[in-house]
């Protein structure tokens, strides 16, 4: 196994292109090293992207932010302005593993690992985040909800890698939140995860909403029916009730060691309601 740490996107792309699929991108490594140790992956070359400036920066971008794919959870947590604009997204990233994991794990890695249970993904979907991808044919952008195509499978083509995310600006009276359920208080993989983002007009009527749902299908989902249940309402309990049933009917989970179909479906609605109330409160206060 070769280890390379290029300093430009171009070098990284050509290294990955030459590897013809036997290349693996290393950001925080909190998933990759476990896979290397267990022999699940045997890459010919590991391309460490952390020396590429764009993957490590948080910069403002027309009222929103551009966040490098390899920026760690700990660094996000320390970025006051980003935390103020998208608290739900930052909270979601902070839920990935322990303090030690936070010192390494990144949103980019969390997304590219393509686990249906990735914590940051439903929050990024709710936030309407875009992925910036570098590749042999130049750069392209993709909405987060279109990035993963199945468990462990992404839309990335050979030679491509995820450089950064765009988190958009947002009007006043907007708020987001992410909640997940785990059996313990820490250190577990999400059994269910729900991200909610909404904007209110000056009369407190919901004018825009997005709801992301994780760990209940092959990939994290954008649930437009759930959002539609909120838009045009004052996000009263009645609307939330309709939203939660939309969430439950969007669930297509499996039975596994972490939860049952029944349990995941049941709890997804519960968390959606709770996350929605937090997002609402934040919107009202912003």
């Amino acid at each position, binding site marked *: 196994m070769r280890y390379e740490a290029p300093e430009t996107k171009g070098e990284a792309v050509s290294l990955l292109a030459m590897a013809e699929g036997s290349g693996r991108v290393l950001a925080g490594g909190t998933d990759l090293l476990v896979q290397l140790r267990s022999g699940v992956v045997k890459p010919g070359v590991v391309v460490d992207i952390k020396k590429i400036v764009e993957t490590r920066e948080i910069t403002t971008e027309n009222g929103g932010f551009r966040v490098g794919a390899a920026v760690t959870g700990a660094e996000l947590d320390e970025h006051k302005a980003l935390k103020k604009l998208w608290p739900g997204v930052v909270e979601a990233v902070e839920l990935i593993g322990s303090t030690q994991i936070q010192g390494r794990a990144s949103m980019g890695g969390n997304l590219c690992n393509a686990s249906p249970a990735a914590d940051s993904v439903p929050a990024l979907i709710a936030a309407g985040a875009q992925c910036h991808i570098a590749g042999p044919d130049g750069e392209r952008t993709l909405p987060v909800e279109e990035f993963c195509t199945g468990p462990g499978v992404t839309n990335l083509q050979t030679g491509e890698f995820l450089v950064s995310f765009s988190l958009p600006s947002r009007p006043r009276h907007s708020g987001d939140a992410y909640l997940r359920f785990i*059996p313990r208080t820490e250190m*577990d993989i999400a059994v269910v995860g729900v991200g909610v983002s909404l904007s209110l007009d000056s009369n407190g009527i919901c004018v825009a909403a997005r709801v992301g749902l994780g760990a209940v299908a092959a990939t994290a989902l954008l649930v437009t029916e759930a959002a539609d249940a909120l838009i045009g309402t004052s996000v009263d309990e009645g609307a939330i009730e309709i939203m939660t049933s939309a969430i439950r009917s969007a669930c297509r989970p499996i039975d596994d*060691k972490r939860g049952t179909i029944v*349990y995941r479906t049941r709890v997804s609605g519960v968390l959606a309601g709770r996350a929605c109330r937090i997002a609402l409160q934040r919107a009202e206060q912003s």
Partner: protein
Amino acid sequence: MAAVEKIFNDTITDRETRDKTLKWVGTRAPRPDGVDKVTGRAKFGADTYLPNMLYGKVLRSPHAHARIKSIDMSRALALPGVKAGVTRDDFPDHPAGAVQPAGEMVINYRDMTRNIMAREKALYEGHAVAAVAAVNERVARQALSLIEVDYEVLPHVIDVEEAMKPGAPLVREDLITEGVEPVPEEPSNIAKRVEFGHGDLDLGFSKADVIIERSFKTQPVHQGYIEPHACLASFSEDGQAELWCSTQGHYVARGHCAKLLQMDVSKLRVTCSEIGGGFGGKTVVYLEPLALALSRKACQPVKMVMTRDEVFRASGPTSGASMDVRIGATKDGRITAGEAVLKFQAGAFGGSPVPAAAQCAFAPYDLENVKTIGFDVLCNRPKVAAYRAPGAPLGEYAVESVVDELAKTLEIDPLEFRLQNAAKEGTDSSYGPKFGPIGCVETLETAQSHEHYLAPLKPGQGRGVASGYWFNIGGQTSATLNLCEDGSVALVVGTPDIGGSRASLTMMAAESLGIELDKVRPLIGDTSALGYNMLTGGSRVTFAGGIAVHGAAADMIKQLRERAAATWDVPVDDVEWHGGQAVAVNGYKDQEDPMGLLDIAKDMAKSGGPIVGRCSTNAQGAGPSFGCHIVDVDVDKETGRVSVARYTVIQDAGKAVHPSYVEGQYQGGAVQGIGWALNEEYIYDENGKVENAGFLDYRVPVCSDVPMIDTVIVEVPNPTHPYGVRGVGETPLVPPLAAISNAVENALDIRFTELPMSPPRVLAAIESVG
């Protein structure tokens, strides 16, 4: 040595007065090994290296149950850098009846040699099938992939009740159940049936106004020590060997390895590393005989360390169980009869802790009519290893749940109900012997008046209590005190220090000698340093080690008095040992200046040579320990998550030599119990393979899961011990399962009869009652 003898003979009242004069016992002194353990200097199992060292790796069965038709090592052994390989052919077989005492139990070496390396069949996923030693781990792993094993996969069975059914896949084809008459003709997975009790159940139940009968089920769990099994073996060409390993008993490990490798015990020297947790799981051998066999072939040192995955698949664990309990009581709260039938998974070989579970289940109670029956059942899991009060947490989970339900039905406070039926001195225990002085009533009364029990609950919370019992044991123990030329003392003991025993043993040595604590330096000797020592387990070390250390001090004091008497030219009977000094008494009072250790030590050579206090004993009369736990829980009714809001452990320690480490045992046991009750469980797929062999999905409690654990140390002295010590290490894991289940019942008005009470189970129960 009047002063010392007195400590042995003194009565409880003497003891109370003496307790006031104790200088070290009962204090929170610094632990002698503390600095090494906070600086990273302490050497654990995987922390040693030898020149020319090889790395050993084990090939493990991917099948839960399979006949091994052939094993071809040739390609693996041909790989450059591979120095040795071993399989079943490298370990001599033992006849079926080859049982002999070793460590705590009689060991069946026919079974043990099959557990460390599969022979006819692989009996569980993770069962060792072959091992190799190579120049580094990478080559060793590569070699494993070149070993060709031809398996014939067989049907498997995991669940205890499935395993007991006629026609279940047989783990051992020729197993005839022990303990039933007439002797069965057909083989089955039931290795043994045991029965305990006294009185007349029918009569007892006929007197009952209320009878409650429930069935319980628990999933198997693992001890969960943080340090994986590790060892380093070095065999020399002349047939002598050295073994360094993380073990609860290096003398016991020596005996097992010598037997399995057919070598003289004296030719194997075992040194125990610092041990990173064991809880019973490091009382047996796994890697050690393999490393020795590989080293013997390669004539190079071989290091072996388990991965966490191997620890979960191939070591420990403890039994999952199915249990039926029936208890009857009168309206005024007197239990008239209790009956329990316990079925325990033994794993691939007989020897589950079901006998102890059957003995302990009703132990907190004074019962006229009681009967417990236990079944030891083979299944395709690793042979279970001891886990902290082996068996007792399960049996008492079932009994204490029904006791709680009875109290509720009779509208009697659960502690009051327990007190009305509590075992006390003179009670015929549920398993036979009369109890001597015990603290069962004291722990219950302490709980009744504890601020926690009296505090109001927050809305939605539930509170539960439960009692627990463990026998505790003594056993063979040796200790040596070497007087150094400057008057300081080197203490050598032979029991691995798993949680502060260097501190407690040193404190008792200083107390018995009457000298400063910092003048005694403890060391854990290797197997060549002392006579035999049974392992660190059964809550025996502070009890039995204390007796040995105290005896060694008595032996040293006898010699010190003789040296002083000779020096003064007075009869030895006119010299006594007081406050760390030889003092002339009787007719010679005040005629000689007292001689301290330094005075005697500096002229030791002239007065007769080295002074060594020795004691090798087989400690008897371990004092049983009772505990009572109080727990408050919150339940999230929408997600089914149970969280522990407050927890108090009350337990009889006899005498707490080092209260901080006694509290630590109470707190650690309670939190292991919280894990067992709420989230810990082995999850098997349809092929009998473990799905959660790691700390990610085998969910031990993390720091943010639990509150502070309050403790109360009750002290009802054990009269057989010089300082009144009872074992304390195991009882703390006995009450939590029932206490937490009782608290959840109190919060939800739903009685759970299955562990763990994980969120999906709890939510399903909540929704089923609407």
